[in-house]
Every structure is written in structure tokens, then in C-alpha cells.
């Protein structure tokens, strides 16, 4: 760990090592991986973890290199947040054509944890699973480590040489295919390129974008605009299959979820709640929050939107286009209900539809929003400074067919991976084979790289300079946290090379852009923006003034005929954890259970119980086995075989498939996991279409983390409607749930707000409590705002160095997550209610785990935490058995060792670890520690600063709490009456699980509320 600066000789030296390393060569050069099913058998589960580190010893140097340009630490601290010893740097994470403001915890010059940026509206200090997992993404040893020419390793200067000569001829017919980006710098370079290469064409390709929504506004208002829904402003939200709270469903999900939970946040009977109607085909987590949920096939949903417009055209102006329209959904009771609600709450409602639907649908939604007077209040529309005024989808399709026809001699593909993701009927790979020179910039040597002759390894966003606009238009700069581990280059650096033939520095490129943006003293302004992570002079995109354009009717009417058949329909959505497949090589995301199905490491065909029966498949899973039946899905254009999964509440005659799986040549984690469903996707039917489904006589092993779906009528989750709550605020107490008090409890005691006096049932012992001079830590989780996204799990995994164990171990129920989210179905299997319940360690006052440990390896700390002493644990597992909540996790194998110390350069993955948390070894128990490292850091800081033992409320945030977009988790000192957590625990909705067994959990829950339409109930 000696030299602090990048040393070129070192770099070259390590490249030679790279060249020498057999194992890496073998991997890099082989066309297909030797065994795609590495993860499925237990022995080579280990080999998979070995290869996670396998390749050249380069990171050894990387780990101690600082970026060469000056970047600024996040020193000024906002209220209610004391940052700890490590430095925090503001940056932002690009995702399609948005950026999200983040802070990166940077210990000893290496990024180790992602948090949200409190000052940035896109996150407000919160994060999504993609943000949290970005750390592991950057430290992924499988990322491409060098440019390649026809599979041969070359250096970037070789490419620069080539570019200099190749692009010297400016009259070339060049096709640029890029991923969506909001970067001003990239936009600047793009315009330069278009002027330098007049015959060039630039198209954008994103397999799952909101382009149709934009086209919808174009159709309705004649402008291509970004729709921003302000969920905190609305009384009524109607979501037509728009999973706006999931990062895979919406680019701005963190802010959306935050706003939505604000609108639903109830602390007292007088508080109000917005109402969510959700009409969708599969069960999304947004749907699980709905007060009224209707399940329909995608085609029916489309029809219902038109029908709703037709219905409303009777009462509202501006919907003339729909006046005489009707379809099979007209007169559906939901249409009537919605009409009533929407009219009653005019200009306080939001209608939104899933990005998959056609422009016509989105045009109708826009028209409805404007007719209802929502636009400008709950819905705002904005011009995008960086967006071409074209329909990206069709532009891309046309460009590809031209390429097919040989119209281009050069194709430059930036970031995106069309060979894998482009619609099947475009036959993209085939098309670009007619292009002479193919250049691909990507983080992995992926499907497209293999189809191109030049591959340039892309730098991770934490490694390179960049910039971009937030979804709502605030400008941010992306400042690197570490010099590129594998010497990758950013998209703007590549474009610069194409323009000039020289390798440029992203730093200068970005600065050059911002010189024209920032007013006043540039250096000072620049540093301010870097420091804050946002340019607060830019308060978002300007509102576009819109009105329904003339001729809208004539345009829309022909688009309104619907295609509802009684055949089974497949709907293709991006995977909640892997998105379009770009995160497929991320172990954390692969192992994060799907929010609804709780499936890890696989995608499945989701279908309703009755659809399953109609296909001759069992509607109930065999509790005793991991095997599920498979189905064959044939669209005519393509066919796949995939495991069938019964999803209660799924629409009948409809099957939902998640894209992003079935990758084969990008890395050890992703390879061979799941099934690639892109072959079923065509330009004609990118979202849904009919298909032939037939049961296949084969079983498939699925690693699901929750084998039992029903709550069995137990009281783990307690819920009521808003009205019931107002009638009986104490609806969630044990007494109201069971009709009688907890046997032997002194109710008076329990009612008292002094947590020390809070008794349980009478006990034979005089209990010891934590002393009052110490803070007494406790947690409260609000089930009313929690929507089960699972970011707490990933945040915890990142904070506490929790290993990835692989599919086989998960299917053996040995997943290591310290906080899990239980998902329960309630009611009839066709349209059940869903409850999400995050379950960390309860830190019971009278912890049953402690007394049974023969060696006292788990005991209570003075500040009331149930602590695990790893080096004392001998691993009897008795504590886990005796834990009523089953939150303890056992190292059955040496998971951490396999995860972190195998392979040639384990340093890479090791760098992702949190230096403040012990790595657990084989044979010991582990569990949620209430982030004791953060707690103690805060206690020490406070003691140093004020001499007090008790940190201010809010100074300690657990990883899960800090990440939660819905503010569902509160944590703090229970001896402080005014702390948020104390307030929550005094709230009448507060309850603890299993009160009658008198373990007295420190973690309690706030009961869930729903706000159904009184007329419907």
C-alpha cells in the first residue's frame, strides 16, 4: 500500500501480468462459459465465489490509489446528521436519462457505502436497491479490464490511434447507438459530433424506457415532455399498472415513494391519507399498497383507460375525442367508481399508466390529467433540454434496418447492450454484422461486445467524471470516488477520443461544459456544486404550458381499438432487482428476494392460481420441495421454457415475465442464471401479446426465501382501515386483536409511556433492565409506509459485510440477510391483500436466545442491545432455535472466507467491505446488531463533544433506517421521551409481535392502515 499516485509503469506491469494470467485469459477468450450452471450445485458454488475474485493482481495497487483530480469532502453537515469518521463525498448516480444524488462513504480512499444526499430532491438522503448495490457493482472483478480488438487485449492508446485515423474521414456514415443519458457534457459532445460527422446518425436505445409516456404527451399536447407526478399533493392516485414505487418501474422511484408515504403518513386520528387505486395484471409492490386493487390483463387495462376517458368525457371538457367511444370495459364498476372519485377530487388526483403501454394510452392519461385539472397541481410537465425531438423507439428500429441494408460503415455503441436487449424481430446482431467497423463501450465484455470488433471497457460512474439532470431537472456533477480500477474510460472520454483522436480527461470535459452553466466565480461555484452534490441554482426543469392540441381527436380515435382476446397473454416487465439485465452480475441484487415472490437467483412465469390450474399445474406449492413445474411459452417469434410460479392476485389468463436473466458470457454471477425472455419481445408487441402456453414435463429448482405464504390468522401483522382507526385508535393492541388482555399482564404498567416500567406478563424473575444513565436503543417500523422494496436488506448487507451464499444455499434456507421482509397474503387467493413486514432482530428485553447459550456468547449490553459475541460463539444454534422470530443466521460453511479470500485478486471484492464490521467465520451465529458500529461511533463522538453518554436523537441512523425511502424505520434512544422512536412507541398504533410470550421486543411495529372508498365497502 505504498505509492499514492497512479504509476504508469505499474499499470503496464500489471497489464503484462494480466496477459500472463492463464485463468483470466481462458475466461476472457472463451466464447461460452464452461458450465453455465455453476451456481446450481453446491461444490461449484464455491468455485463461483472463487472466480468472483479470479483474474489479475491489479486491485492490489488500485486499492490505494486516489483520484488525480481534486475532489471535495462533504464537510458541512446538514441538521440531524453527524457523519462519522470516514469522509463522505457527494456524487450522483446516472440511471437512464436521470441522476440521483448520493453521498459515498469513503474510507481510506475507497468507497465503501452509498447513502442518499439529504440536499438532493431525487433522494432526500434515501436510496434504492440499485444505489445501494452500486458499490458491489464497482468492485466486480468480472468487469472488463481492458479494451479489446476482435477479442485480443489491447490498450486504450491503441484504440485512440485507431480512432485518430478512422475518424479522420469525417464523411463516414456513422451510427451512434447510446443508452439514455441526461449529461449536458455528453449532449455537448453529441452536437459537436453531429456537426463534425454530417453523415452520422445518433439513436438512443433503452429496452425499458418511458419513451411511450413522452410520445403520449407529444400526441396529446404536441410536445415531447417529461411527466412528473407529485404524489404528496394528490388525494386520489390511480395507477394503471404503473409500479412507480419500484426502481425498475420508475426512474424516480425514491422520490415517488417518499412523496407517496408522506401523503399516507398518519400519526394521529385527525391525519388524512391519500387513496390509491391500482389496476394491474401482476402483483406489484405498488399494488400491494393499494386501497383498491383490480387485476386485469394488460389488454383489458388499456381498454379500461379508454373506457374511463369515454365515461369522463360526459362530465369533463377536453375529452371530446372519446365521446362516442366504448369498449368491453365500458360500464365496468371500477370505471364508474373511478369516475366518481376523480370528478369529486378534481385537480387533486393523479392518473398514471405503466411505461410499457402504447403512446395512445399515455396520451389518454395526459388528456385525462389535463381534463381533470391535475396538470400544474399534482402533475407537471417539463421540457427536456437534452432530448432529441424524435420517437427513440422508432428511430432506433429504422436505424437498425438501415444498418441491415448496409447504410453505415461504422457503428459506435455507448453503454447499451442491444444484441441482448433489442427487440427480437430487429435481429440486431445480424444487422450490425453488415457494418464494417463496430465499436462498443461497456462495463462488461457482453453480448454486444462479442458482436463488435472494438470493445472499450467503460468506467463505473464512481470512477469517472460526469454530470446529469435529476428526474425533476436539478443539475449535478458526478465526481469519481476512486481512480478507475481497471483503467476504464467514460462515455464522454470515448466521444472525445472519437472527436479528437486523443484520450481526454473527463475532468476537463465536464468543467468545459459547466463553465457556460455556472455564473460568477467558476472555481468557487464549481467547488460548491461538487460539495453539495447539486447545483441549487437550478431548481428543476421549467414547466411547459400545455393544452390538448387540435386534431388530437382525429389522431387518437384510430388508435383506440383494443385487442382483447380470451387467449393467455404474456406481459414482459423489467426485473425488480436486475432491471433490464444490467445488474445481472451483482451478487447482492441476485440474492435479494423478489419483493413479492421472494424468489432469488431466478426469473419465473408469474400466473394466477386459476390460470395454473387451467394449464394443469398445481396451484399450491409443495412445502417439502423446492421443485416447481415448468411451462413452455411460444409466441410464434420465439419460445422459451421457464419455471411456472403461482402468484396469488395475478390476473387470470395473463402471465408476467421478468427480463434481464439468462445472460451467458458476462460474469460468474450472472452466467446461467434464469431464462432470457427478450426473444419473446418484438417491436410490434414490446409489452404484452398473446402466446401459446403449455406445461412441460420438467421440474426446476427455485430458491425462494419464504415457503409459507399465509399468515395463518396470526397477529404478526395488524391492520385497519382509516375509519376503523378513527373509531378505535387502539385497534392494534393485543386486547383489541384477541378480545382479551395478555394473560398475566399488568395493563396499567403497559399503558405507561416509561419504557422501563413497561411490563409484560408477570414474571418469576425480577428482570434486569439497561441502566437509565445509558441510552436505551429501540426501533419502530411503520407498516403503514413500508412497501417492501427490500432496500433495507441491501443497505444492511453493504453495511454489515453480509456474504452472498449462492442459489443452492438459499434454497436450503441458509440466506444470511440480517433484515428480511416478510410478505403475507390475506384473503382469497384470487385477489388477496398483501402485507410487508421487515423483520430485523427484535433485541428482546428478555431475550430467549441469551439464556440458552451454554457459553454466554450472546448477552445484553448496558444500552439494551442483544449482542452476538462472534469469537465466543461455539455454534450450538440453540439461540436460533429458541428465537421466536427466527432472525438469527448461522455460518453453515465458511461463507465469508469463500466470498472474500479466494481467487487471484480478492482485494477487489474485499474493498467493498466495511472496515468497522467483523467478518464472521464458519460455525458462528450472527444477526442484526442495530448497527452497533454506528451506535458506538456516535456515542464516542458525543462523549468527546459534550461529555454526555446519550447522542442527540437522529445522530444515530441504522443502515436500514437511513436507506428507507418511506421513512418506515425509526431508531433511537427510548430514554429520550422526545425522540422520534419514543414518539412512535407511544403512538396508539404501536404493537410488538408475540406479546404473550413476554420476551419484550425492543423492535415494535406501527399497525398498517388502508383508506378504502367507503362507497365500495
Amino acid at each position, binding site marked *: 500500500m505504498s505509492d499514492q499516485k497512479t504509476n504508469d509503469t505499474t499499470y503496464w506491469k500489471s497489464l503484462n501480468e494480466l496477459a500472463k494470467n492463464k485463468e483470466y485469459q481462458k475466461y476472457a477468450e472463451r466464447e461460452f462459459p464452461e458450465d453455465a450452471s455453476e451456481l446450481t450445485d453446491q461444490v461449484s458454488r464455491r468455485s463461483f465465489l472463487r472466480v468472483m475474485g479470479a483474474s489479475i493482481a491489479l486491485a492490489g495497487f488500485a486499492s490505494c490509489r486516489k483520484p488525480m483530480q481534486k475532489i471535495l469532502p462533504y464537510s458541512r453537515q446538514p441538521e440531524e446528521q453527524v457523519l462519522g469518521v470516514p469522509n463522505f463525498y457527494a456524487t450522483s448516480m446516472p440511471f437512464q436519462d436521470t441522476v440521483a444524488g448520493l453521498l459515498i462513504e469513503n474510507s481510506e480512499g475507497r468507497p465503501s457505502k452509498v447513502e442518499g444526499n439529504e440536499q438532493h430532491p431525487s433522494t432526500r438522503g434515501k436510496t434504492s436497491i440499485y444505489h445501494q448495490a452500486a458499490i458491489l457493482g464497482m468492485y466486480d472483478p468480472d468487469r472488463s479490464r481492458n479494451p479489446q480488438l476482435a477479442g485480443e487485449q489491447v490498450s486504450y492508446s491503441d484504440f485512440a490511434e485507431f480512432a485518430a485515423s478512422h475518424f479522420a474521414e469525417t464523411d463516414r456514415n456513422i451510427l451512434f447507438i447510446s443508452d439514455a443519458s441526461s449529461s449536458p457534457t455528453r449532449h455537448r459532445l453529441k452536437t459537436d459530433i453531429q456537426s463534425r460527422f454530417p453523415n452520422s446518425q445518433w439513436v438512443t436505445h433503452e429496452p425499458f424506457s418511458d419513451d411511450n409516456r413522452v410520445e403520449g404527451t407529444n400526441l396529446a399536447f404536441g410536445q415531447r415532455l417529461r411527466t412528473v407526478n407529485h404524489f404528496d399533493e394528490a388525494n386520489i392516485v390511480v395507477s394503471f399498472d404503473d409500479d412507480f414505487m419500484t426502481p425498475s418501474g420508475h426512474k424516480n422511484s425514491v422520490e415517488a415513494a417518499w412523496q407517496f408515504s408522506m401523503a399516507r403518513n398518519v400519526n394521529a386520528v385527525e391525519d388524512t391519507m391519500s387513496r390509491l387505486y391500482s389496476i394491474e395484471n401482476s402483483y406489484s409492490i405498488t399494488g400491494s399498497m393499494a386501497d383498491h386493487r383490480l387485476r386485469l390483463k394488460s389488454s383489458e387495462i388499456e381498454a379500461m383507460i379508454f373506457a374511463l376517458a369515454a365515461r369522463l368525457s360526459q362530465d369533463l371538457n377536453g375529452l371530446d375525442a372519446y365521446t362516442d367511444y366504448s369498449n368491453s370495459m365500458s360500464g365496468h364498476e371500477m370505471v364508474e367508481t373511478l369516475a366518481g372519485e376523480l370528478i369529486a377530487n378534481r385537480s387533486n388526483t393523479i392518473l398514471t399508466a405503466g411505461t410499457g403501454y402504447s403512446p395512445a394510452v399515455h396520451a389518454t392519461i395526459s388528456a385525462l390529467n389535463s381534463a381533470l385539472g391535475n396538470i400544474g397541481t399534482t402533475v407537471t410537465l417539463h421540457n427536456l433540454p437534452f432530448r432529441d425531438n424524435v420517437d427513440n423507439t422508432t428511430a432506433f428500429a429504422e436505424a437498425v434496418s438501415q444498418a441491415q441494408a448496409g447504410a453505415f460503415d461504422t457503428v459506435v455503441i455507448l453503454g447499451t447492450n442491444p444484441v441482448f436487449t433489442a427487440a427480437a424481430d430487429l435481429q440486431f446482431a445480424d444487422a450490425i454484422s453488415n457494418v464494417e467497423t463496430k465499436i462498443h463501450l461497456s462495463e462488461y465484455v457482453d453480448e454486444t461486445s462479442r458482436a463488435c470488433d472494438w470493445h472499450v471497457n467503460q468506467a463505473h460512474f464512481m470512477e469517472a467524471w460526469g454530470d446529469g439532470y435529476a428526474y425533476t431537472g436539478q443539475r449535478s456533477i458526478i465526481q469519481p470516488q476512486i481512480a478507475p480500477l481497471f483503467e476504464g474510460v467514460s462515455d464522454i472520454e470515448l466521444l472525445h477520443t472519437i472527436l479528437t483522436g486523443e484520450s481526454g480527461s473527463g475532468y476537463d470535459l465536464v468543467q468545459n461544459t459547466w463553465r457556460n452553466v455556472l455564473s460568477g466565480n467558476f472555481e468557487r461555484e464549481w467547488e460548491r456544486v461538487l460539495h453539495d452534490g447539486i447545483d441549487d441554482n437550478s431548481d428543476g426543469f421549467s414547466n411547459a404550458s400545455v393544452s390538448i392540441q387540435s386534431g388530437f381527436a382525429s389522431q387518437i380515435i384510430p388508435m383506440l381499438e383494443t385487442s382483447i382476446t380470451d387467449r393467455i397473454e404474456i406481459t414482459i416487465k423489467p426485473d425488480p432487482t436486475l432491471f433490464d439485465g444490467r445488474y445481472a452480475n451483482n451478487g447482492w441484487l441476485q440474492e435479494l428476494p423478489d419483493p413479492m415472490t421472494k424468489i432469488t437467483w431466478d426469473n419465473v412465469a408469474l400466473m394466477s392460481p386459476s390460470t395454473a390450474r387451467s394449464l394443469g399445474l398445481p396451484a399450491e406449492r409443495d412445502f417439502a420441495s423446492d421443485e416447481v413445474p415448468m411451462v413452455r411459452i411460444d409466441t410464434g417469434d420465439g419460445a422459451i421454457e421457464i419455471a411456472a410460479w403461482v402468484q396469488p392476485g395475478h390476473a387470470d389468463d395473463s402471465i408476467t415475465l421478468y427480463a434481464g436473466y439468462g445472460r451467458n458470457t458476462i460474469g460468474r454471477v450472472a452466467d446461467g442464471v434464469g431464462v432470457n425472455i427478450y426473444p419473446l419481445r418484438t417491436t410490434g408487441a414490446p409489452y404484452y401479446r398473446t402466446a401459446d402456453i403449455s406445461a412441460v414435463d420438467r421440474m426446476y429448482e427455485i430458491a425462494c426465501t419464504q415457503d409459507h405464504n399465509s399468515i395463518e390468522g396470526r397477529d404478526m401483522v395488524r391492520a385497519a382501515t382509516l375509519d376503523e382507526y378513527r373509531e378505535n385508535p387502539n385497534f392494534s393492541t393485543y386486547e383489541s386483536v384477541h378480545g382479551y388482555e395478555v394473560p398475566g399482564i399488568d395493563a396499567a404498567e403497559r399503558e405507561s409511556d416509561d419504557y422501563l416500567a413497561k411490563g409484560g406478563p408477570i414474571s418469576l424473575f425480577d428482570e434486569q433492565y439497561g441502566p437509565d444513565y445509558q441510552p436505551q436503543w429501540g426501533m419502530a417500523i411503520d407498516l403503514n409506509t413500508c412497501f417492501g422494496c427490500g432496500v433495507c436488506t441491501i443497505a444492511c448487507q453493504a453495511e454489515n459485510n453480509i456474504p452472498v451464499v449462492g442459489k443452492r444455499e438459499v434454497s436450503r434456507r441458509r440466506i444470511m440477510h440480517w433484515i428480511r421482509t416478510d410478505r403475507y397474503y390475506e384473503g382469497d387467493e384470487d385477489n388477496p391483500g398483501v402485507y410487508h413486514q421487515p423483520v430485523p432482530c427484535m433485541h428482546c428485553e428478555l431475550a430467549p436466545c441469551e439464556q440458552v447459550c451454554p457459553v454466554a456468547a450472546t448477552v445484553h449490553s448496558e444500552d439494551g442491545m442483544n449482542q452476538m459475541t462472534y469469537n465466543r460463539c461455539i455454534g450450538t444454534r440453540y439461540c436460533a432455535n*429458541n428465537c421466536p422470530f427466527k432472525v438469527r443466521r448461522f455460518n453453515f460453511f465458511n461463507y465469508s472466507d469463500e466470498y472474500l479470500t479466494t481467487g487471484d485478486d480478492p482485494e477487489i471484492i474485499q474493498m467493498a467491505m466495511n472496515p468497522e464490521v467483523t467478518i464472521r467465520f464458519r460455525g458462528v451465529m450472527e444477526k442484526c446488531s442495530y448497527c452497533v458500529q454506528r451506535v458506538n461511533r456516535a456515542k464516542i463522538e458525543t462523549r468527546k463533544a459534550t461529555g454526555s453518554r446519550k447522542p442527540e436523537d437522529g445522530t444515530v441512523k441504522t443502515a436500514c433506517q437511513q436507506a428507507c425511502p418511506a421513512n418506515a424505520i425509526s431508531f433511537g434512544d427510548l430514554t429520550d421521551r422526545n425522540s422520534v422512536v419514543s414518539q412512535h412507541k407511544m403512538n396508539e398504533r404501536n404493537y410488538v409481535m408475540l406479546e404473550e410470550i413476554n420476551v419484550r421486543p425492543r423492535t415494535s411495529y406501527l399497525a398498517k392502515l388502508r383508506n378504502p372508498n367507503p362507497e365500495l365497502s
Partner: protein
Amino acid sequence: MSKTYEYVPEPALVKGNHDFSSINSLITDINLRPTPKGWYIAFGLSNLLLFVLLGSIAYLIWEGTGIWGLNQPVGWGWAIINFVWWVGIGHAGTLISAILFLFRQDWRTAINRFAEAMTIFAVMCAGIFPAIHVGRIWVIYWVFPIPNSMVMWPNFNSPLLWDVFAVSTYFTVSLLFWYVGLVPDFATLRDRIKSKVGKMVYGVAALGWRGSNRHWWNYEKAYMILAGLATPLVLSVHTIVSFDFAVSIIPGWHTTIFPPYFVAGAVFSGFAMVLTLMIICRKIYGLEDIMTVDHIEKMNLIILVTGSMVGFAYLMEFFIAWYSQVEYEKAIFIIRATGPYAWAYWIMISCNVISPQFFWSKKLRRNVTFTFIISIVVNIGMWFERFVITVTSLSTDYLPSSWGYFSPTIWDVLTYVGTFGLFFTFFLLFLRFMPMVAVAEIKGAMPQADPHNYDPETGDYSPQEIEIPEPNKESV
């Protein structure tokens, strides 16, 4: 007056007309005559199994607890099941030698040596599992209160720790008890064996015992006291083993009925195991005169009683679960009988509750083959009882979200099978080198041993008529 009952004289303990020395040679010749071929074969086989055990333990230590089928809800599987099963079996010996001794049940002399040996080897098999089932076997010694680098002590609140003390105490005391009984017989062998080495070895083992009645005087006292100590001990051991479950809060474990219920189960399985082994040995070694059908019948009666007690306990659990109205208790018992593990539950019921009921019939009680079959069935049933208790309660407890199914791996099976290797290796050595019946004791229990059975004048042996109690002289 009508006869109210018939007086049934105790059947003679030793069949055939034996005198002291014929009994003596009948038993000790087994140790003195050259080793039979069959023994070598049996010994070879059990050694093979023993290596299976050692192999699977080695792999376990090398690879980790993960090689077993354990998972997140089910943290205890076959290891604990086997532990409880073997310990249970290990209860018969001490029970027979201690409790039956206190009750002056002289028939015990035919089988107590044998049963005690079985006890000790069974407890050895049992002892292995708590030691190897932990995640870090190399620090298992932390469960003993010995100073260590952490200057920490074990946690005396933990039932597992109680287990450590209970089982080790039980093993030690059983061993002493067994040895004390063996001393006079070692002396017998010392005096009979020809080979020099044998004389040395047995001589040392006999500690110079010479049958002095001054010694016998203390000896009997000691034996009596040991019996008095072993009786509460044997009851306490399985009680404490049952605490492993009863003291925790898992539905189906947290039950006050466990201690008596476990002890009954232990006696049940222990007697069954003694029968299994005894029926084989009496045949092979021609000891039918000593281990008579009457013995088998008496033991079958005990099996019948304890079996019924166990059955009653099963019913009681259900009743209490319903009576307490604790929803989780109610749920677990319904799940046991109808849920994913119903198959195990009904195997348990039919083996433990139904099969012993056949012993209501005297004919079946005295039928050796039938007894042999039942004795094996019972031990299968008792294994499943422990399976049902351990696994079902864990796999479906409070939070339905964490319910999970347990299925064993090949390593679970091999480790279990291997323990039979250990057991039979030691048992065969015992049969070969130690008198499998307590010679001195059985002599003492023969009619010739009673001074009153001699003619006062000539001093010749003349057994007296049986004393028939007053009220019904005429009935005989």
C-alpha cells in the same frame, strides 16, 4: 371359605439344575474358551461402521456443519435426535441395576451386567453428538468451567450446560457402578484363566479381590448406596435432556410434561434395546437357563407399561394444547398430526403406542421371536418420537414466514449409522472379555446360597417347602 386368589410362587431364576460351579463355568467359559469365528466376522463389520463414523466426523470438521441438512428454522436435526435417542437407550442399564436392586427384584441379576454395558456404550454414542454438532468443534471445551483466554465462564442458565454435567456425571457413575459389580467376577476369571497375561490383566482388574466377607460387608453397603444414588441420577438425566426442549419457548417444546414423559420413553426404548441384544446373545451363547423366558416376560411387562405411559403423554400434550388455548401450541400439534411431517408422526404413534399393546397377551409376551420384532419396532418408534419433537416444532413455529422443511443429507445418515459401529465394537469386546452375567450376584440369588436351605443336622442341601400364607392354605 371361597378362595380369593391363587398363590403363584416366583419361578426359579435359574432353570435346569445348576450348582455354583456349573453356573460359574457356564458364564465364564465364554471368556475362557478360544474366540469363535463368528465373533471375528461381527467385529470386522462393526469396525467398518466405526470407520464410517470417524470418516463422516472428519469430513464434518473439515467442511462445516453445512454438510448436514440443517437450515434456518431447523437448527437441530439428526445429531440432537440421535443424541436423545442413544441417551434414552442408555437408561435401561442403570435403571435395571439400581432401581430393580432397590426393589429387591432378584431377576435383574441375569441381565444387569449386560444392560449396564449397553448403557455405557449407548451413552458413549450419545456423547459424540453434542460434541460434534456445534459449529466450532475445536472450542467445544468452552462448555466446561475451565479458565480460558477469554477469562469467561460458561452460562449456568443454559439447559445445554446442564446437559454437559448430567450426561458426564451419568456416564461416570454408570461406569463406576459397572466396575464395582465386575470386581468379584474379574477375580473369578483371574482364578480360572490359564494364560499368564490373562492372569495379570484380570488380576489387576480384580484389585486383589478374595471374597472376604469383611469386604463383602462394605461392598454390599457401597452397592446399596450407589444404587440409591444412581436412581435419582437416572431419572434426572433424561429430565435434564428434556429441559433442552422444555426450557425453550418453542411451541411443542415448552411443555411441563416433558421430564416424566422423556424418562418413560427412555425406559421404554432402553428395555427394548436390552431385549434386542439379550435375545440374540442368549441364543448364541446358550444362556437360556439364565436369561429365561420369564425374564423376557417381565421386561415385556415393563415395555407395555412405559409404552402406555408414553402414549398417555402424547394424548396429554394434545389435551393441554387444546385446554391452554394457546394458538401456537394448538397449531403445532395439529400440524404434527396432519402437516408435512404427518408420516413421521404416525410412524411414531404406531410403533410406540400401538405395538406394545400386543403384550397384553401372555402368549405374545412369552414369544421370543415376537418380542424380538417388537423390541426393534419400539426403538424405531422412539427415534421418530425424537424426530417429531425436534424437527416439527422448529420447522413450523411462530412466524409462518420462516416456516421451512427439513430434509437430511447423506452425511446425517452416515453419521447415525456409524454410531452403531462404535456401539457394537465396544459391545463385542465386552462379550468377549467380560462375564456378561454377574456371576457372583447370580450365585447369591440361587437357592443354594441361602443358609436356610440346608439340613441343620447333616448340613446337606435340602430346599424347604415354599411358605404359603395363612388365609388360603387349602387353595393349593
